[in-house]
C-alpha cells in the first residue's frame, strides 16, 4: 500500500447535490494516483483553532491521469460548513490516502446497501467492480427522493440501482433492507457492503452470521489524526476484549468481526 502524503491541495470545483451535500473536486496528484476503494483522506481547510482537527472523508472517485479526486461531504457541523463555503481555487490541507484499500473482488455478485453520506463511501468500489466486469447491485435509500446521494455516479457504475424512499416518493416505499433481501433470495449477490445507517449494519451482520452473505461495514468514529496516532476511532471487536481502530484496521470491516450498536 502506498504511504500517505500530507499536502496543500487545490479545490478545483464544487457543486451542491442534493441540497446539504457538497461535492468537492481536489487536485493532489499523488493521492489521486495511489488511492483505492475504501480509502479516505483527512481534510483541513482552516488555520483557525475552532475548528482545529482535520475531518475524515471517503474518496468518492480518483482520476490518476488528471491528478484529481472527489469528495462528497454532508454539511453537518463547524468543519463541514467551513469546507462547503470554500471557493474554487482555494487551498486545503489533505492527508491521504488513509485506511486499508479493498483488495478482494472475487465475489460473484456484490450488493451496496447505502443511505445518506454513506453512498459516498461505495462509489469507488462500484467503479472498481464495474471495471472488473463484476456484477454490482446498489440499493440506494433516503428519506425522500430529493435526498438521494451520489445517485448518478452509482447508476453509472452499477449493474442495477434499486431506490428505496421512506416516504415512497420514488422506488420502493420502505426499508432498503427489503430490497437487499430480495437480491439475496434471487441468488444475485454473495457479498454486501453497507454504509450510512446502524440498522443496515445490524441487518448485514445478521445475514453474515447466518452464512447468507459475506458482509462488510464502512465504519465511522470520532477521528483525530486518521493514521493511528490518537487511538480515538475505536470500535469494539466481536468476542474479544479490545478495540480495533477505524483508521488503521478499517474503515471497512468484516461485519462479524466488530460489535454493531
Amino acid at each position, binding site marked *: 500500500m502506498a504511504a500517505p502524503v500530507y499536502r496543500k491541495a487545490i479545490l478545483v470545483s464544487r457543486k451542491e447535490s442534493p441540497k446539504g451535500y457538497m461535492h468537492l473536486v481536489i487536485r493532489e496528484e499523488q493521492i489521486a494516483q495511489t488511492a483505492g476503494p475504501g480509502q479516505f483522506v483527512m481534510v483541513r481547510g482552516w488555520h483557525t483553532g475552532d475548528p*482545529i482537527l482535520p475531518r475524515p472523508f471517503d474518496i468518492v472517485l480518483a482520476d490518476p491521469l488528471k491528478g484529481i479526486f472527489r469528495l462528497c461531504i454532508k454539511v453537518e457541523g463547524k468543519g463541514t460548513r467551513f469546507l462547503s463555503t470554500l471557493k474554487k481555487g482555494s487551498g486545503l490541507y489533505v492527508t491521504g490516502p488513509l485506511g486499508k484499500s479493498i483488495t478482494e473482488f472475487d465475489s460473484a455478485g456484490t450488493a451496496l446497501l447505502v443511505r445518506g453520506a454513506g453512498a459516498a463511501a461505495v462509489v469507488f468500489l462500484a467503479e472498481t467492480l464495474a471495471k472488473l466486469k463484476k456484477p454490482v447491485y446498489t440499493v440506494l435509500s433516503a428519506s425522500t427522493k430529493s435526498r438521494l446521494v451520489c445517485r448518478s455516479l452509482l447508476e453509472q457504475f452499477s449493474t442495477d440501482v434499486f431506490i428505496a424512499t421512506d416516504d415512497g416518493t420514488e422506488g420502493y416505499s420502505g426499508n432498503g433492507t427489503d430490497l437487499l433481501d430480495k437480491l439475496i433470495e434471487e441468488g444475485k449477490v454473495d457479498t454486501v457492503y453497507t454504509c450510512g445507517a446502524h440498522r443496515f449494519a445490524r441487518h448485514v451482520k445478521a445475514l453474515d452470521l447466518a452464512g447468507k452473505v459475506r458482509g462488510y461495514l464502512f465504519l465511522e468514529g470520532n477521528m483525530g489524526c486518521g493514521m493511528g496516532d490518537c*487511538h*480515538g476511532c*475505536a470500535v469494539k471487536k466481536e468476542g474479544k476484549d479490545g478495540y480495533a481502530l477505524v483508521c488503521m484496521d478499517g474503515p471497512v470491516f468484516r461485519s462479524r468481526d466488530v460489535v454493531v450498536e
Partner: protein
Amino acid sequence: MAGAGIEDPGQQVDLSVDIAGVRFPNPVMPASGTYEVDEIHDNFFSPSELGAVINKTIFLHPRPGNPPPRIWETPCGMLNAIGIPCDGAEAFIRDRLPILRRLGPPVVVSIAGETMDEWIELSELIESTGMADLLELNLSCPNLSEGIPWSTEEKTLERVVSTVVGRVKLPVVAKLSPVVTDIADMARTAEASGAAALSMINTYKGMAIDIKKKRPALGNITGGLSGPAIRPLAVWAVYSAYETVKIPIIGMGGVDGPTAAIEFLLAGASAVAVGMYNFIDPFAMKRTIEGIRTYLAEEGYSSVREIIGLGHG
C-alpha cells in the same frame, strides 16, 4: 533556504540540549501518546530527525482502553479519554522498543503502574532491556478508572518517584499533572524524591456534553484537555517550576510550531514536546525544529541552551 554556495547561518546553531545527562540532538520530541513510529510517519519525515523519541505509555499488562467516543473537539483543543490501551510490557519490549532504539535519537520510555508493585516491576523490566535512555513516569493520566493520578497528591508522588529511583539507574522523568493547587510544589517534591527531569504538563481534566444525545460527549464522561487551548496554563506551569527546581524540564501543552516552542524554552523548558498538533500537521515537529533554528540564527544565538529560561530576566 540556502542557495548554492551561500552559507545558511542557521546550520551553525547548536540545537543540542542536555536532559539529565542524556544529549538530545535538538530540543523537540513527541509527547507520549500522540505520535507513532511506523512506515506511514516515516514517509512524512524520518523520526531519526527528532530530539528524542517516546512510546505511548505502557502498563505491565495488556489493557483495552476506554469505550468510545474517545475524543471530542473543543475550541483550540480537544478532549481525549483514550484510557491508554496497550499490549503490555512484553509485547512492547519485543515489538516496539527495538524499533525506537534503532532510530538514533535518545529513547524515552513512558510507563505507568496500576499499583506500586507494578511501577517497580515495569521500571526494572525496562531498565533490563538496555534500550532506554530515560524512564518517564506517567503519573498524570486523567483517564484511568484506578483513581486519581499519582501526581496529584504530594505523598503519593514522593512514594512512587523515590521508590522507582531507588530501583533503577536510568534517569527518571516525572510527568506531572497540572490538576493540582500549585504545580511548583509538585515539581519540588518530584525533584526531592530523586527525579532527574520533569515532563510538564499532562492534560487538564474536563468534559463536554453532546447536545444532540444530551449525554456526556466522551464514553469515559471526563477526558483530558490538550492543544493550544491549554498553552498559557502550560507555559505558566513551566515558568513557575523553573523558578523552583534545578532539574531540566520538558515543556508541553499546545505546542503547534516554533513560536510556541520558543515560548516554552524562554519560560525554562530545556526541551519541548508536541502532542495534539501531530494530528493536525504531520510535519509539526519538523517545522518546529527548523523554526527554532531560524529564530536562534536571526536573534544571534549560537546555541539553543542560551535561551533556556531567558524569559525570567
